[in-house]
């Protein structure tokens, strides 16, 4: 690999651009293909498939064998609510490779002491979310319990391509929230709530495990399976 390929990959990651490295295994020749130009490439089908399913692999043509290494943008987790459960989720999500953003208009919650090394926004989510941009590689959690904060954020998430939307709250809270969101004109059925896989979680760390498990399932298998 030429050092320039390495640098291109680093830049693509910083810019959240999906690219693939195509290697001719016999000769070692390599090229970087951006997702938006994949349809013009000789290996278009394999490339587009790889980007869609985040799957790298070997493809063979009549004359050569190529390795397609997909570099999709990093997974991202946006959490609304700098609460105790969020503190439990952050280290797990980091370990699973997520870049994390925490948003809470309450400055006393969204502090560097409570969330070291996390991108923090002590602002209203509906002000911050447009500039962050929720894409198909982003999971979203609303954890404040406060409709004033959670609802506008959930509206934004429901209108985006994010792959997972979870909202904290009991069945009763969830039912009331579903009604409010319908009245606000959005279809709330994508929201996972009560949030997390049902593993009988007790306390913040176990709830965090349940949420991470559900989000992982949404990413890898889809929630219908």
């Amino acid at each position, binding site marked *: 690999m030429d050092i320039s390929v390495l640098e291109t990959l*680093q830049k693509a990651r910083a810019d959240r651009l999906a690219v693939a490295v195509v290697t001719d295994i016999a000769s070692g020749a390599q090229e970087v293909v951006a997702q938006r130009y994949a349809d013009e490439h000789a290996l278009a089908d394999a490339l587009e498939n790889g980007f869609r399913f985040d799957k790298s692999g070997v493809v063979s043509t009549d004359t050569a064998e190529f*390795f397609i290494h997909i570099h999709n943008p990093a997974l991202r987790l946006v959490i609304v609510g700098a609460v105790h459960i969020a503190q439990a989720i952050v280290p797990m999500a980091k370990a699973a490779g997520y870049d994390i953003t925490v948003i809470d208009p309450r400055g006393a919650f969204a502090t560097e002491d409570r969330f070291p090394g996390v991108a923090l926004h002590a602002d209203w989510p509906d002000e911050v979310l447009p500039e962050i941009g929720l894409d198909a590689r982003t999971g979203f959690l609303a954890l404040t319990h406060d409709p004033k904060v959670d609802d506008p954020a959930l509206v934004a998430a429901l209108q985006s391509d994010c792959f997972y939307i979870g909202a904290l709250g009991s069945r009763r809270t969830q039912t009331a929230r579903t009604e409010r969101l319908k009245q606000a004109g959005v279809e709330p059925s994508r929201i996972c709530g009560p949030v997390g896989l049902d593993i009988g979680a007790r306390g913040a760390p176990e709830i965090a495990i349940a949420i991470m498990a559900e989000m992982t399932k949404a990413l890898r298998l889809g929630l219908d399976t």
Partner: protein
Amino acid sequence: MSSNDANLLNTANSWVREGRKVALATVIETWGSAPQPVGSQLVIDGDGNFEGSVSGGCVEGAVVTEAQDAIETGKGKVLAFGVADETAWEVGLACGGKIRVYVEPVTGA
């Protein structure tokens, strides 16, 4: 691609900048219960230091040796590991899977 992969790219780049000779090893195919998915990488330097993983520890030693060879020759090569392989008894995958690993030097620095 996870942030761990990104860290590896950063590691590879910073090692190159420090003047170290560097190779990359990438899992390109797996069969059966291989522990690391396709695309997993190992960064290796000329002294045998490495970061990352291609197998969860089973074959890293052999990959590191081959990577140092690739640094010497400047050429990439494909390695295959698995229970069907003659070398499996020495550097096999205890999980019973098979993997192919592409090893290449980082050039042009």
